[in-house]
């Protein structure tokens, strides 16, 4: 029911929305919950386990019951808190976890079966017969459980992540937060004030409070006006700080576009990383429910929520209201309602000595023994100091006192402290470095106390920042003591008293866990699932702890508490993963030849972050293999051109450059003549092969190292480590020039002819030689190296000319009967030649395994040498690189067996790493690691690939299949 003239909503902006298909009206500024209550909708959901009818309990993000599904198609969003979601025109909300309808839910039967579904029942049954678990029991449980549904469609909406830095982060904008922000801001500090709700002010805008004799709302507006005008203040509404992380870093979720319909590029949410020099936690407190039989009916709400709906939204949730509380403060609920003209049937106070002076009946020593109303509260039955009674009410406001919102102070393993006087946990001092709690979240519940602590917290932060605090008078406000007597459940009654509304955990469940010796608070939590629901125990932890303490005969501090973990509120994966969608997950690296390759129809495939052409199809070719075979033959017969720019290139200079290479390579580079290139093998310090590649000596003190594409970054880091850790004083510097040069392989019998036409004059370059050349005015480098086994070159040119040179080389190759070749042919060519890649150098390979143990120089130390000498790193029991030759395809990943042996792990002789069809040899070739393989050339081995259903025999050979003597290479 909406009251005229009350609330802070914008009555000039009516909003139309639907819930379960019915159309309702609210106003801008309404939450879905306030708008539904205004329309007298009380039943909004079904509970998790027993499917009990549930209404709205709270007015905030801690809501355990009122979770709905909104929007449709790929916008469908489950588990939206009606108490947080603001209404906008066209918003379509649906109840969830019910079938066929909210009012009639078949699984409501679970409620009747509840004696058999007590805490942990599933651990004790469903064990037999064994296959029934996956086939019957588990699917039933899964279907019954869960709350809302994902659409199964890709979330195509916009999300974002951002960074913010400040001197002081203030979390929460109630009296403590506003006072802290104002104090810090006036001192000139950069301040971020983050508020979860759409409107700043906290209880000052949700309660009927007065500040300096004025309505609290007015003081809030005045303060905000000042803050807005300051350039050093950033006000962030709809922003929940979700986590406290190390060194002043906080995560925060901003609901950017959730209060209006989707719009292009408008993020739904933004996940902030806020780095603060100091922070003030002014997050307030959460009111506690009370446990009594059937305390979960729609219409039973927190007293503070009733006040929030009244003052912020001008809504009263019922027509005849009662209040039950264990403290003085909650009585404001009844008074405010009566002042607004709403009928308050009674105040029930659980305390025997409470005041009875109110404008409505007051019952002391009151305990609710039962409630009625299938889909919404109709009456309560209670006993009290003078007897017992039943009251016809449609709404019951309850207050069990307050729990400080100290969650963030636990995120760095801080353990809260129990304060008996307020029967609540408060933050441990300095639980989060450089964070000061203030106000209600610190256990200080009066408005004046909040102002005071907010200011003190700001002063503390300013002092730590070396700033002086401004002289700022504290506003005058109520300073009443918080009078409360702990009360947790109705003793000595039958019926289920709910603790955890969201997970359907009752006081009986907690007692049963104690009875079964799950007495640790963590055991109780895990056994009953109390505190593991969407509200993460915000409403139930302390109550459950009290019941457990009682059941085990311990005090609450001795019983302990469970740990709050981030995020403070459930946070969408899309927000924290913003930017990761699609290609955004990792940078894309493009070759200069990229467009030229695409122009020729080459499929581009991922090679690390790079895209490289797989093959260059010709008209008439229908499979990749046809193109690959043609490209392979082309290169062996005439000439091929490939972009090899992805290889890592590291420029190494200095008087100690050669010495440095001797340290990082197994073989010796100090003896390499200028103008020559040498293959090098690099080990990790643990003796396994890290990478291989060629290094060229460009000058006496100048080398150019080449790494594999995959290991480029790894090698750079490795070189930096070896240098900075072991020889920082050496005269050596290295710089990545991978991006500075485009590099193309030109290989095949006609490679020299091609380059001669390009260069005019072909330098007389021996195999493994390097020379500077010029192309017109452009300087370039020519290497005579080959990864194909053919007479081959690589030509490097400044990257800006890469595309032009690639197109030019390809055109020249085509004149000679050649053309471009892609990754597939490149792979065939290198297998034919027995060259290894990271399929072979997979991190478990030693120099011995690949037959290169002689490349580990005996004359000098190198990284990895000592560890490579361990007994397990060499010897006949290891798998050694061999070639395999067969008449039908083999599969990489196949395992090898001696013919006649049974196929089993115990008889396993090795595995295949790379395979190809070789058009050159018209055979199927493979590289493989075979137990003691070098001694087994000529043997027949069985190749078994269960997964690809291949089981054939192959001949074990030397890994070099083509031009073993290197005649072509050196021609």
């Amino acid at each position, binding site marked *: 029911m909406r009251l005229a003239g009350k609330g802070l909503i914008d009555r000039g902006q009516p909003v139309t929305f639907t819930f379960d298909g019915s159309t309702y009206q609210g106003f801008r500024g309404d939450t879905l919950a306030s708008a539904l209550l205004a329309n007298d909708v009380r039943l909004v959901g079904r509970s998790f386990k027993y499917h009990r009818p549930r209404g709205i309990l709270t007015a905030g993000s801690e809501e355990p019951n009122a979770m709905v599904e909104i929007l449709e198609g790929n916008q469908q969003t489950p588990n939206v808190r009606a108490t947080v979601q603001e209404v906008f025109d066209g918003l379509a909300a649906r109840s969830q976890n019910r079938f066929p309808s909210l009012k009639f839910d078949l699984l409501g039967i679970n409620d009747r079966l509840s004696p058999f579904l007590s805490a942990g029942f599933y651990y004790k049954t469903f064990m037999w017969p064994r296959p029934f678990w996956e086939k019957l029991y588990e699917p039933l449980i899964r279907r019954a459980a869960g709350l809302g549904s994902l659409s199964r469609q890709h979330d195509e909406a916009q999300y974002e992540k951002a960074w913010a830095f400040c001197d002081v982060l203030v979390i929460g904008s109630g009296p403590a937060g506003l006072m802290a922000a104002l104090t810090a801001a006036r001192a000139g500090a950069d301040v971020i004030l983050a508020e979860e709700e759409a409107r700043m002010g906290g209880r000052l805008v949700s309660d009927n409070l007065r500040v300096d004799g004025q309505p609290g709302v007015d003081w809030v507006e005045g303060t905000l006006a000042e803050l807005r005008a300051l350039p050093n203040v950033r006000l962030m509404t709809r922003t929940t700080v979700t986590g406290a*992380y*190390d*060194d*002043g*870093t906080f995560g925060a979720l901003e609901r950017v576009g959730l209060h209006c319909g989707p719009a292009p590029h408008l993020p739904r949410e933004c996940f902030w*990383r806020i*780095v603060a020099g100091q922070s003030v936690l002014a997050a307030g407190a959460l009111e506690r429910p009370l446990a009594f039989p059937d305390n979960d009916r729609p219409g039973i709400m927190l007293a503070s929520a009733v006040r929030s709906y009244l003052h912020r939204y001008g809504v009263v949730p019922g027509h005849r209201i009662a209040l039950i509380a264990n403290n003085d403060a909650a009585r404001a609920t009844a008074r405010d309602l009566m002042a607004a003209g709403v009928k308050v049937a009674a105040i029930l106070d659980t305390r025997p000595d409470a005041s009875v002076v109110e404008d409505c009946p007051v019952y002391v020593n009151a305990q609710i023994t039962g409630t009625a109303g299938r889909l919404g509260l109709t009456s309560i039955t209670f006993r009290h100091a003078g007897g017992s009674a039943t009251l016809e009410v449609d709404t019951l406001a309850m207050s069990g006192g307050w729990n400080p919102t100290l969650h963030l102070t636990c995120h*760095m393993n801080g353990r809260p402290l129990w304060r008996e006087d307020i029967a609540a946990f408060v933050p441990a001092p300095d639980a989060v*470095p450089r964070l000061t709690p203030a106000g209600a979240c610190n256990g200080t519940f009066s408005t004046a106390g909040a102002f005071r602590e907010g200011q003190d917290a700001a002063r503390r932060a300013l002092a730590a920042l070396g700033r002086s605090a401004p002289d700022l008078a504290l506003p005058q406000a109520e300073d009443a003591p918080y009078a409360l007597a702990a009360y947790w459940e109705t003793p000595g009654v039958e019926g289920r008293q709910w603790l955890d509304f969201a997970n359907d955990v009752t006081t009986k469940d907690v007692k049963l866990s104690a009875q079964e010796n799950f007495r640790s608070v963590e055991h109780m939590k895990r056994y009953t699932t109390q505190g593991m629901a969407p509200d993460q125990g915000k409403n139930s932890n302390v109550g459950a702890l009290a019941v457990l303490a009682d059941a085990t005969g311990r005090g609450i501090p001795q019983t302990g508490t469970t740990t709050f973990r981030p995020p403070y509120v459930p946070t969408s994966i899309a927000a924290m993963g913003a930017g990761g969608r699609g290609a955004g997950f990792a940078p894309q690296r493009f070759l200069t030849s990229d467009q030229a390759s695409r122009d020729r129809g080459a499929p581009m495939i991922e090679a690390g972050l790079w895209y490289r052409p797989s093959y260059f199809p010709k008209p008439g070719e229908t499979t990749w293999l046809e193109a690959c075979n043609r490209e392979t033959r082309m290169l062996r017969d005439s000439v091929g051109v490939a972009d090899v720019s992805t290889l890592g290139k590291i420029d190494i200079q200095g008087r100690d450059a050669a010495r440095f290479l001797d340290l990082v390579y197994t073989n010796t580079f100090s003896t390499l003549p200028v103008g020559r290139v040498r293959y090098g093998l690099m080990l990790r*310090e*643990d003796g396994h092969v890290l990478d291989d590649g060629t290094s060229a000596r460009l000058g006496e003190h100048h080398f150019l190292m080449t790494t594999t594409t995959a290991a480029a*970054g790894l090698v750079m*880091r490795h070189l*930096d*480590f070896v*240098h*900075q*850790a*072991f*020889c*920082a*004083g050496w005269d050596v510097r290295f710089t990545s020039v991978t991006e500075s040069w485009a590099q193309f392989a030109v290989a095949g019998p006609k490679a020299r002819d091609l380059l001669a036409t390009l260069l005019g004059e072909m330098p007389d370059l021996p195999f493994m030689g390097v020379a500077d050349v010029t192309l017109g005015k452009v300087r370039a480098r020519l290497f005579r190296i080959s990864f194909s086994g053919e007479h081959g070159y690589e030509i490097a040119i400044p990257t800006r000319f890469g595309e032009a040179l690639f197109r030019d080389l390809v055109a020249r190759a085509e004149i000679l009967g050649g053309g471009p070749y892609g990754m597939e042919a490149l792979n065939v060519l290198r297998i034919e030649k027995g060259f290894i890649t990271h399929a072979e150098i997979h991190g478990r390979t030693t120099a011995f395994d690949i037959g290169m143990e002689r490349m580990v120089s005996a004359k000098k*130390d190198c990284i990895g*040498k*000592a*560890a490579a000498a*361990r007994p397990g790193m060499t010897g006949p029991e290891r798998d050694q690189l061999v070639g395999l030759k067969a008449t039908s395809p083999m599969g990489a990943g196949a395992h090898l067996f001696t013919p006649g042996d049974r196929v089993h792990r115990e008889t396993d002789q090795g595995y295949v790493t790379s395979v190809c069809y070789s058009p050159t040899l018209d055979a199927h070739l493979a590289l493989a690691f075979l137990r003691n393989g070098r001694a087994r050339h000529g043997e027949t081995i069985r190749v078994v690939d269960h997964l690809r259903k291949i089981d054939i025999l192959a001949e074990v050979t030397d890994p070099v299949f083509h031009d073993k003597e290197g005649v072509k290479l050196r021609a």
Partner: protein
Amino acid sequence: MRLTCPLCGARDRREFTYYGAEDYLNRPAPDAPPQAWDDYLHNRDNPAGVTRDLWYHDMGCSSWLLVTRNTVTHEILAVEAVADRKGGAA
């Protein structure tokens, strides 16, 4: 977590690559006994408390850093460049 790189200043943890304990700096002589190499490569004090370990500022200046920090609280106590460390490199 934030590390203060001696060159770049205070930076988010995501800019750094962790390697392991300080042990990796104490490379044994090539002819040291196998036990020395086993200790160097594998065995660790692994304290629950203050430790010194190696980080690489790979998204920043490329410095290797020797970080003194607490493994229980994540408090960073000191950061120095490996190349410039006291005692120096070879």
